[in-house]
């Protein structure tokens, strides 16, 4: 009887260790070894990164990598570029809300995967050099890149951190990696069944998604001229809401969302962000033969989003930084309202024109 009880105790003990080991392994695999990639859905913040990796894997012969945030994702039309320059010459790697850390890491990952591009084109929006209240640019990049982070990031984060104190917080997130997955895991555990279905669909789609990157380009034909004047848009929207089944409603809502979030925000060129840009350009220049910088086009006729003073400070800083790093700054692209589907994103026609403009500048170099 005593032996049986000892045996049960031992089983209970070792079963406990097995459960702990299983839990520990699961956490390590999911959050530290990239296993969570298999649980991504199209709404996951890292989905765009996973898609980018698939595109890189399937198009290793591309010559030009185009980096930027959503203005590139929506506005650069690789199909238009490649029609003239040759198949798979350029790859659009634009990722919504991406910033300097993410650009550097993407290029690093591309090189590690055997990619040897001839050139990198970095498209900068004016906000990139300003700090935003209540929004942490580096933290956002780390959250987006979480499935691709590794030990090299402890050093990389140091270069992108403004102070030792902030480095400790970022490095802490790297060390305690699940902290970067909060939103994703919360959604997963609170909607297990619908999420499981979505995971299957998304993972199936991702298998071939990188093969035809041009097929992922959006085809928005709307022109923001129809929403002018932007300052009156709130009133127009109120009137439009009273019309049942209004066809313009969705477009106007989108323009308003883009306009209102940017209008009258405090913007100032931050010296540390300028330093980060310089470091990024130096890094790119040391790894890729040619680096180009272009200023992203935007529609802001009343200077509500970007005051004249800030525009001047931004372009002056970019000019100085590019001249210091021997990187070519492309001339500004002339725009009008017919080219945008909201205040910062180019529509189909605008995207084509912008892309051809960039191609002509790069080809002429």
């Amino acid at each position: 009887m005593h032996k049986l009880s000892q045996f049960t105790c031992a089983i209970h003990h070792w079963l406990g260790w097995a459960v702990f080991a299983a839990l520990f392994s699961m956490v390590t695999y999911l959050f530290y070894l990239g296993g969570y990639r298999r649980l991504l859905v199209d709404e996951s913040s890292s989905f765009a990164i996973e898609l980018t990796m698939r595109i890189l894997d399937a198009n290793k012969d591309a010559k030009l990598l185009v980096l930027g945030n959503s203005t590139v994702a929506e506005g650069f039309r690789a199909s238009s570029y490649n029609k003239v320059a040759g198949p798979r010459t350029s790859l659009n790697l634009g990722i919504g809300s991406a910033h300097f850390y993410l650009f550097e890491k993407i290029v690093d990952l591309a090189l590690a995967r055997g990619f040897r591009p001839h050139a990198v084109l970095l498209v900068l929006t004016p906000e990139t050099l300003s700090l935003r209240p209540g929004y942490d640019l580096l933290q956002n990049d780390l959250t987006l890149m979480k499935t691709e982070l590794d030990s090299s990031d402890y050093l990389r984060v140091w270069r992108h951190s403004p102070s030792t104190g902030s480095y400790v917080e970022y490095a802490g997130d790297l060390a305690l990696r699940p902290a970067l997955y909060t939103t994703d895991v919360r959604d997963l555990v609170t909607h297990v069944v619908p999420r499981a279905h979505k995971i299957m669909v998304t993972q199936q789609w991702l298998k071939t998604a990188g093969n035809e990157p041009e097929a992922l380009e959006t085809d928005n034909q709307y022109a923001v001229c129809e929403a002018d004047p932007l300052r009156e848009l709130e009133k127009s929207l109120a009137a439009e809401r009273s019309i049942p089944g209004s066809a313009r409603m969705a477009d106007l809502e989108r323009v308003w969302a883009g306009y209102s979030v940017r209008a009258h925000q405090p913007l100032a060129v931050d010296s540390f962000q300028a330093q980060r840009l310089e470091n990024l350009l130096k890094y790119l220049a040391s790894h890729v033969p040619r680096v180009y910088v272009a200023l992203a086009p935007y529609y802001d006729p009343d200077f509500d989003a970007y005051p004249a003073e800030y525009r001047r400070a931004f372009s002056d800083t970019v000019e100085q930084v590019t001249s210091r790093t021997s990187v070519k700054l492309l001339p500004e692209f002339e725009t009008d309202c017919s080219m945008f589907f909201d205040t910062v994103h180019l529509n189909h026609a605008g995207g084509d024109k912008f892309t051809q403009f960039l191609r002509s500048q790069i080809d002429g170099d």
Partner: protein
Amino acid sequence: MTFGSFSFWLFLGVTWILWALSPNLLYRRLVLAGSSLIYYFLVQPATLPLLVTLVVFTYLAGEGIQRASLPRLRQRFLGLGIGMSVSCLVAYKYASSLGRFGARLAELAPGLRDESGRYVLALGISYYTFQAIGYLIDCYRRQSPSDSSLTDYVTYLSFFPHITAGPILRSMDFLPQLRERARMASPVIWTSLVLIIFGLFKKMVIADNLAAVVDQTYSNIAATQPVQLIVASYAYAIQLYCDFSGYTDLAIGTALLFGLSLPENFRWPYLAESIVDFWNRWHISLSHWLRDYVYFSLPGLRSGKLAAHRNLIITMAICGIWHGAGWTFLIWGLYHGVLLVMYRVGQPLWRKLSALPSWLNRLVAIVFVQQLVVMGWVIFRVEKISDLRVFGARLIDFQAYRSAIFTLSPELKGIIYLLAAIWIGQLVHRKVPVTEAMRARHWNPWAMSFLLLIALAIVTFKRSVPVPFIYFKF
């Protein structure tokens, strides 16, 4: 740099290594005192001179009390020390409410206003001034260790894991511990780990998520459905408890790593069977401090029941004002004072009338006390007195209940389920004390798995924007 930030844990780690590597007790005490001052400097450099001044002044006053032989001289040292502590507290905590005088004060006192001109609440001032006063009274009553050094006194007033929100330490309990050489044994580390993880869970998972609902509701009481107001009030009761007791668990857990035992501050307060019982379970270090140093010091304690009741109400009014200069805090303190008096007066009568079985009697008492306490928290939470009137008016808008009950949002239903679960959890805890059981099971794989899951829950359900501890502003 608080418990929610990595900087704090890095600071703690570095301090602990230095402390553990110290060759003798003197070095260990120097490490603790030095690291506490450095911590204060890192968090709020502008008010460090205030802390240092108060430390030196009250330490010297304490020395004066202990060394002086003439009673009058001892009284003078005591008066000077207490006067200095109370002046600092009034200046730095209530200056923003002192109008022109406060503005003049700001010109004289260093760090009273920040760069933008706003009044700064000196970090932990309510706690360390009370501790200084307690120390002086203990010296006067000859209850404090007579051989305490300035180094130990610095640690006593500013020990970094507890400085921002207590618990309020007693010199006779804390100072002798600094003279003992602590040994780091596995059970101590385990107990510390359990307390830290449970503290983070209470704060980051329960309190911070409830804060979202509570803050939204209380920011616009007039436009909120009465059902939501009621739910938010219960949610606030739980939020406040988890926020504050979570901090206390973290403070006790981290102090244990240095071999220091901090006093218990909470003992399942919402299971109190009377309002007196509640104050023996809620913010114990403050209620006992007020009892020992204010209530017992007020005149007329032995002059009859009426004077005792008056002293009780005065003590609770001080308790209210200790939380801040708002009228709502004063009313909250008076409300509890009146409840305590009513309990004292009515308790014998209740015992005679109650014919219920003892278990039912206890359950009724628990539920009744909970309602009284939650009503108190409504007074405590509102921004201004006029909000109380609006709150009351919304509660008696019976028309609004009919529509609201059938249209409860899924989020609100979720909160109701969570509150119910926590309530049941409290009752279960009486039979199966989870944290105590966990603390007793050193390095047990099942307990470790449970802690790992709790840690994952913290990471998963924490809010993306950190929410400051509520008691930091008191």
